[in-house]
């Protein structure tokens, strides 16, 4: 709300007051607001207020060529941009009937998992910071930087890579790249015991996170919760395994599940997923040298590329949950309609409002971060 439009309201005398979390708050990634009514230390009602990061991506995409939108989509989620590129590219490839070469698919999986590790490291740190522990945040961001270095070497961009294009990937791996990936994986794996000592066996963190923001499986299904938040309630579902895309059906990995459904369980699921992502990446590093062939399927001149009319719904598993693109073509050189279904659109509005109601004031930021909501996905 613009300040000049704010009008104070005279509430009847009560011991409740209104507290604004955000739009600039360290308890959430990005600009997002949560208006809570508080009675003493207890939250009596909460209202999510988005739109601070609305940039109108869906409208902008209707005015740009199919290939130009590749530069737009990663900006929809800053901490985890690769799934956006891949999901959009998968939609175009399905519309245009393009077969992606196997090598490109493996390179995409490698990026997706690197991005997942980077996003989870970021989330650990943020979650710990909301309970007053700032060291994991510095560690997480420092370790994430090593993955950004890998992305920089691969694509030239640290945060936005614009590397996955319809038909495949832009460039092949630089010489010796897989060795450097391998070394980074070794390093991150060697850091995991440190993270455990610092955070996951830390009594302060365990006590603060246990029993906070509890979501049972029935509620999670009712509110369309996906991703690690859903797996923390005991439902064994992962888009990578159950609605497979790329080469995930050739890769061996487990889907970690926790039962408690609270902030602690969500942190544990992400912690186990980190390990699974490392395991997937080891397989990719071992496999990639033996997968030859092109990195890109031939596509028509992208500046005059008319995709056949039709519509497609593609889904990928991002670090936050189920990410989906609904893309409609009317036979033109630009998308007729693109609808981005970000996982956070569910987590940051209805689920957050429900979980925060009845919680204590000091847990609000922690609940926000344990849901790992990404506000730009809500606003688009």
């Amino acid at each position, binding site marked *: *709300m*613009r300040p000049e*439009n704010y009008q104070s309201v005279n509430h009847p005398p009560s011991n409740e007051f209104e507290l604004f979390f955000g739009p600039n708050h360290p308890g959430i990634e990005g600009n997002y607001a949560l208006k809570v009514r508080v009675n003493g230390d207890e939250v009596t009602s909460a209202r999510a*207020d*988005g*739109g601070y990061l*609305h940039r*109108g991506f*869906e*409208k*902008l995409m209707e*005015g740009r060529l199919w290939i130009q939108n590749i530069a737009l989509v990663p900006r929809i989620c800053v901490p985890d941009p690769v799934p956006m590129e891949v999901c959009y590219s998968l939609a175009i490839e399905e519309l245009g009937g393009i077969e992606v070469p196997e090598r490109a698919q493996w390179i995409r999986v490698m990026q997706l998992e690197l991005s997942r590790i980077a996003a989870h490291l970021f989330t650990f740190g943020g979650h710990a910071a909301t309970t007053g522990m700032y060291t994991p945040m510095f560690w997480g961001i420092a370790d994430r930087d090593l993955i950004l270095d890998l992305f920089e070497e691969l694509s030239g961009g640290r945060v936005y890579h614009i590397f996955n294009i319809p038909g495949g990937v832009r460039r092949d791996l630089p010489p010796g790249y897989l060795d450097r990936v391998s070394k980074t994986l070794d390093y991150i794996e060697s850091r995991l015991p440190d993270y455990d000592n610092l955070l996951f066996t830390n009594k302060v963190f365990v006590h603060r996170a246990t029993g906070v923001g509890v979501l049972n499986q029935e509620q999670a*299904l*009712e*509110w*369309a919760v*996906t991703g690690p938040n859903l797996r923390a309630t005991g*439902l064994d*579902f992962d888009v990578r395994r*159950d*609605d497979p895309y790329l080469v995930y059906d050739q890769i061996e990995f487990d889907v970690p599940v926790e039962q408690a459904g609270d902030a602690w369980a969500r942190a544990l699921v992400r912690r186990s997923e980190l390990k699974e992502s490392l395991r997937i990446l080891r397989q990719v590093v071992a496999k990639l040298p033996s997968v030859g062939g092109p990195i890109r399927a031939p596509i028509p001149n992208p500046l005059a590329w008319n995709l056949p009319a039709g*519509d*497609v*719904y593609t*889904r990928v598993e991002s670090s936050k949950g*189920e990410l*989906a693109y*609904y893309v*409609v073509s009317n036979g033109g050189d630009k998308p*007729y*309609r693109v*609808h981005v*279904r970000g996982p956070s*659109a*569910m987590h940051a*509005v*209805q689920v957050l409002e429900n979980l925060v109601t009845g919680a204590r004031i000091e847990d609000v930021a922690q609940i926000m971060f344990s849901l790992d909501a990404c506000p730009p996905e*809500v*606003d688009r």
Partner: protein
Amino acid sequence: MKLSPTSNLSASLEFLLQEISGLRSQWKSPRRLRVDLQAETLPALIELLKGRAGFVHLSAISCVDWPAQNEFELVYHLWSYEVKVLVMAHIRIPRDPGIYLSIYDLYRPAAFFERDIHEMFGLFFEGSPDMGKFILTEWDGPPPMRKEFDGEAWVMNQFDWQDYQPGWLKDIEAKGGGITTRPEDVRRDKPKPWDEQS
């Protein structure tokens, strides 16, 4: 008949869908079923899919504007964790008056998508718990995602270019620094250097 993951999935799902009159279904891939039906029969389909086929997950509701036919297309994406199929139910409703029924009573997440569609397309859902603004809080223009809304033209009509020349900047510019491109140089209607060359 109840669906089970072991049964011949496509056949049993299609068998179940025959109960809805005027429905056309098409398998786009082994896990994607496109369904076209009349707007009046959608609540019956939703109830059937959720109640008897285990489609508990509403993945999204998408809206597509078709001004040539004067219609909105609504697409309900429903996923079943048990049978692992995504049903995309397509309906068309007239743009005028642009009112449809909410499915909030069966799927809670619908509230978010319906609110979003109302905000972006101006389509009203009867029975949805909250049709208030969420993203475009202080927007009073037309619904921006409609095809006739031209964002660039709206900006050009609505805003003037500001000539930002405070005193301290003038001092800097007198020394050769500051903003080198004047607002009148970036106007769209002004010929560009490369126009003159060609």
